[in-house]
């Protein structure tokens, strides 16, 4: 993981873990469309934050927050829990970088 010095870098560092959650969640076939719509909606929000504040310095503790969040997401091994985390993960990330979800 590259050093997290900006808001944009924080979100970029978190994205692969989010994509992994989405891939795991897709095992729940009945929810495939919802999962993809949900992930797209949050990725859109990430991109909006990067567009607006991507170059801003990341606040104190943001790098540690992202590392902890990515690590926690990596522990999720149940696709149903992954669906819930597809919503929880972005809220935690956005609050960490000082954004309202």
């Amino acid at each position, binding site marked *: 993981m590259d050093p997290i010095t900006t808001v944009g870098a924080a979100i970029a560092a978190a994205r692969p873990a989010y994509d992994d959650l989405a891939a795991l969640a897709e095992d729940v076939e009945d929810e495939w469309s919802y999962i993809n719509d949900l992930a797209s909606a949050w990725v859109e929000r990430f991109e909006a934050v990067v567009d607006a504040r991507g170059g801003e310095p990341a*606040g*104190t*503790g*943001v790098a540690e927050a992202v590392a902890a969040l990515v690590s926690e997401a990596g522990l999720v091994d149940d696709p149903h829990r992954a669906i819930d985390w597809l*919503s929880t993960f972005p*809220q935690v990330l956005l609050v960490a970088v000082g954004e309202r*979800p």
Partner: protein
Amino acid sequence: MRFQDASPDARAVVYAGIQADPLVARAAGRLADATHDQRILARAVMNGMSTTPGTWAAMFPSLFGAGAPSDGPERARSEAILALSLEVAERGEQVRSQVRGAIVESVTEALVRRRPEIGATSTAVRRERRVLFDGVRAEIHPYDVTVETPGAAEAIDCKWGARGINADVLHQLDDARTHAADEDEQLTATIVVFDAERSCAVRLERQTAPHDATRLIALEDLDRLGGR
């Protein structure tokens, strides 16, 4: 339109035990007073895998970081919510799910009781009640919280996550509202979701069940329950 206690079937008996768990009341009490960030903390921990407090504290610099209060009531609440949420997380998977649901219901009731016109001990706010209408078969599932104030009644269903929003609950809420209107009664149908509004919007977008007249209260807006 009239309200009635739900039948004490097996599900109700088991669930009453969950609702009576002191952990539910303690967590709900803290979450009713919580900030948005603290509520997200609870949501994350209660659905998380880690049970080490330091992991979660690191994830929330706004609550536990260098810029957060190092003492005082806000910090105390953050620490209490973290500890209580970990207690929930340490329950078995099925019990954890039931406890989370009961907590959302209990927080909802606590916030509704803050409405100026209701009061903390009012008998107008009830749990696990059905709404009955003349000539209409009663719904099987009771509403989680009801406000039984004449002229300003409300039926509230509570969900832990956006995924809990489904056709059955939307139909039931909308049916209650329309049946009340048929009797010239006003009934607000509300769904409370302990999840982000954005996620709820995605879920609702996919629903064909009627929901335009159902009020959504998402995690960001829980305090609106206290003021309508």
